[in-house]
């Protein structure tokens, strides 16, 4: 008996470049998959450069609108260039958002194309875990993330080497994550 295996490639299995090509070809399913796949990546870019959950969500919405419009119009030279194109779009949008042009960059109607972010961090739990850290680790985390000071400056203020300051910061974050996961 002859056995044949029939396997249909779904959009979930496509590479990013193939997905981009399918969007250009007018595949609505590929558009949805592109948004599902890239929204978390753009959110991270937003968290790094805008340092705010809501602004990062706005950036994801805006950047994916820009990308979808470019792909639909066939403006992307090569589908392999999708991450670089997205990077350029994110960088320009972040500059605009920093200038206070938030929410006016790309007009869109209907449902948001980006799903809401997962529920955020439990702030009360974080406060409790933070209070349980050794004082030196609390100081380093506050100076790094709350005061937004560079590690060299923090190290000088705490009379540490920059390498040692990084080690203490990484250890503090590992402790915090363990504490938060034990909630």
């Amino acid at each position: 008996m002859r056995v044949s295996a029939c396997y249909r490639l779904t959009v979930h299995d496509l590479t990013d470049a193939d997905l981009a090509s399918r969007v250009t070809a007018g595949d609505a399913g590929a558009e949805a998959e592109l948004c599902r796949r890239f929204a978390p990546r753009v959110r991270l870019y937003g968290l790094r450069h805008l340092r705010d959950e809501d602004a990062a969500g706005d950036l994801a919405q805006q950047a994916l609108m820009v990308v979808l419009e470019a792909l639909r119009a066939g403006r992307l030279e090569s589908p392999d260039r999708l991450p670089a194109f997205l990077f350029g779009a994110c960088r320009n949008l972040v500059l605009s958002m920093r200038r206070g042009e938030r929410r006016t960059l790309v007009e869109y109607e209907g449902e948001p194309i980006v799903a809401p972010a997962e529920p955020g961090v439990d702030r009360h739990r974080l406060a409790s875990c933070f209070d349980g850290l050794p004082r030196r680790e609390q100081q380093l985390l506050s100076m790094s993330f709350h005061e937004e000071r560079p590690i060299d400056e923090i190290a000088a203020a705490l009379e540490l080497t920059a390498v040692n300051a990084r080690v203490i910061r990484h250890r503090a974050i590992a402790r915090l994550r363990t504490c938060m996961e034990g909630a």
Partner: protein
Amino acid sequence: MSCQTRLSVDELVDYFAGDLPASDSERIDLHLLSCSDCTARASALAPLLTALREHIPYVISTAGLQALERRHLRIARGEARAGARNLVPFPDGADLLVIKLAAPLSEVTHLDCELRTPDGHPILAIPEAPFDAQEGSVQLACQRHFLERFAATPEFTITLYRTGVAGPRVPIAEYTIHHS
């Protein structure tokens, strides 16, 4: 496609803290935009680091206050005098009340703070608190959720101690603060 240049947690922490050179930071920007594996790992870390930015210490430095002002928080300000009972209400609509405690700090190198109820029960100990020696001030950051947490004690005392590696711990100022 599996990731060929897996980003480490340490590298991601430096990235989100803004402590990488611009070229390395851009390399990670691009990598995260093209890699689902590293995005998943970074997504488990980034919300915690973002929340840390918004975690306000009990005593804040001038740099910390400036960072809060950049985030457009509604910050009310008050002052407290040592040895006095200071009425410093938390205004409606304010996110944060920063109380400036004036103290003789020009000779101080290390400072501890302790908060107690009026009958002496400890509330908080803040070793190695930030202060401005030149201006002679300590900035206490009262947050709205403290009002719920310490609802039973709207009045508290805060004592500043001069500390050092060799010397004894010496109280230098005490304030009584009432919020309403």
